[in-house]
């Protein structure tokens, strides 16, 4: 029905000024700092790596148990364990710079000042392509303000970060809100260049025999295929409401899943939990996208973005 094309499809994406050779990224916190997957993935093949969340100072994270499996999903309450921005710059970034792939640094803080300080620290650092600002981690209680669920706080924080750096700023939004498009608009108003969605849904599980929560932190973030329908819906709503480019994520395991996000309006996608169950998930998604485009005669990946219609 659809004529096949002979030329290799064009998978490149200009995402908010970041040149990606293809739309397949890694979701923060699920791919370490790239090196962990070196036995499985040639990082040169990826559009980019979004690294595990980085804060100003090292964070030891939550006590175990930190994870629990749920139907087609998992809960995590890692507590944003990370070595801090200095160690990241001296020990993690040099490894990543060896590859021809975009490096997007996911950042967070426990206070307004922390966030801004880490953004400043990364400004102008060679090898860093952009910042993804995590205003949505459900496992961080400290600081008082929940940036991800308070519009005004989100706007002010993102505005300050915008001023603190010349790098493209991508706001990573929380799905645990009534209307995610309002947060997308706040990010746009704050001058952000792009959006990432979704972060994890807040969840909980209980060991009924011991009558204890399964996670030491009681609640955790739900990720994986279970949440995909919610994520696709939010990307679709947001893409219609706000003109910023979107990195879509939440339960992507296959190219088909990635295409749902792209058709819903995402310009790029991030593979998260799937890396755990298939360490080559990113590459498989990428190859599937290419095959799909060839089969369907799609010349450029951009031609698919937001193209869902009643038919």
């Amino acid at each position, binding site marked *: 029905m659809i004529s096949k094309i002979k030329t290799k499809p064009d998978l490149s994406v200009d995402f908010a000024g970041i040149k990606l050779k293809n739309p397949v990224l890694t979701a923060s*916190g*699920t791919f370490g700092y790239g090196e962990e997957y070196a036995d499985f993935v040639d990082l040169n093949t990826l559009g980019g790596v979004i690294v*595990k969340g980085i804060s100003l100072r090292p964070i030891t994270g939550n006590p175990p148990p*930190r994870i629990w*499996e749920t139907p087609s999903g998992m809960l995590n309450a*890692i507590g944003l364990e990370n070595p801090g921005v200095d160690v990241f710059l001296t020990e993690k970034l040099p490894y990543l710079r060896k590859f021809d792939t975009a490096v997007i640094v996911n950042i967070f803080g426990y206070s307004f000042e922390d966030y801004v300080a880490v953004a400043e620290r990364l400004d102008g650092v060679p090898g860093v392509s952009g910042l993804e600002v995590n205003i949505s981690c459900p496992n961080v209680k400290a600081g008082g303000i929940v940036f991800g669920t308070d519009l005004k706080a989100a706007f002010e924080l993102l505005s300050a970060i915008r001023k603190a750096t010349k790098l493209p700023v991508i706001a990573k939004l929380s799905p645990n809100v009534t209307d995610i498009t309002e947060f997308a608009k706040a990010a746009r108003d704050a001058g952000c260049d792009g959006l990432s969605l979704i972060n994890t849904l807040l969840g909980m599980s209980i060991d009924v025999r011991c009558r204890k929560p*399964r996670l030491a932190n009681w609640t955790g973030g739900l990720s994986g295929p279970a949440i995909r329908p919610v994520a696709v819906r939010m990307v679709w709503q947001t893409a219609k409401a706000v003109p910023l480019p979107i990195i879509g994520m939440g339960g992507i395991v296959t190219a088909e899943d990635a295409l749902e996000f792209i058709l819903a309006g995402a310009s790029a996608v991030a593979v998260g939990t799937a890396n755990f169950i298939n360490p080559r998930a990113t590459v498989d998604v990428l190859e599937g996208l290419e095959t799909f485009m060839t089969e369907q005669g799609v010349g450029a990946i951009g031609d698919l973005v937001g193209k869902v219609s009643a038919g």
Partner: protein
Amino acid sequence: MPLTKLHKATILVHTPVGKEYYRIVLRAPEAAAAALPGQFVMLRVSETMDPLLARPFGVSSIISKSSLELYYRIAGRGTALLSSLEPGQRLSMHGPFGKGFPVPPKGSAPVLVAGGSGFPPLLFFSHRFGARAHLFLGARNKECLPPPAVIKKFKDDLEKVHIATEDGSRGTRGVVTDLLAAYLSGLDGKVPAAIYACGPRPMLAAVSGLAAERSVPCYVSMEERMACGLGACMGCSVGVKTGGYKRVCKEGPVFEAGEIEWGCRESNESKGSEEFLTLKTP
């Protein structure tokens, strides 16, 4: 790039051995070539999204150039599902991962301690380095001991196997650490080169205490829930004495016993569902 840690492992042998234990032999040449005693593999028990995560299992033996052996106990739904699979079926497997046991000094007489279902990595260790070793096996009762075929293998490979059951149904009555303590005391000041232990956390803590008292180097193989198995998710952390956490899958599963902060993780949690709690059908 050559993918030496990603396998589609074919089940060659799969048999029940003793109460709720299964032995499975998987064809996976690269894994068989690479695995070291104490390392583990991540096995997906189904290609669907439920159960989602791969399960970690210690390698218990390299059977041939191309296949390795695991022993597992039915602990919940993942292992229950695994037990229903037939030879010929293929499973996604990643690994081997983790830091194995340090190689004991040549000619030394190490002491091994296995509690409950913690024997598989020690089986591999015994075969490689066990000629002069003593093994202490502990369990609640004789049904919870490793299957007879496994005990036989241990006996073949080791100098001596000591058994303790809490109810006295096999071997000495009591906990295995008492038996171990008596043995260590009986050595008259001679200390073994090192202790290698695998089993429930409280047992490891006790063994660690005995070793520390006598200044014997002690290595423990730890368990924690895992998602990735390769150091990326930070899910498998254990608290360490120096503060903060280390990853069982990367810095472990074998740790120097003195590193571990034993007090900080309660180990009582219930595993998979009993019959009456799971999805029923007529």
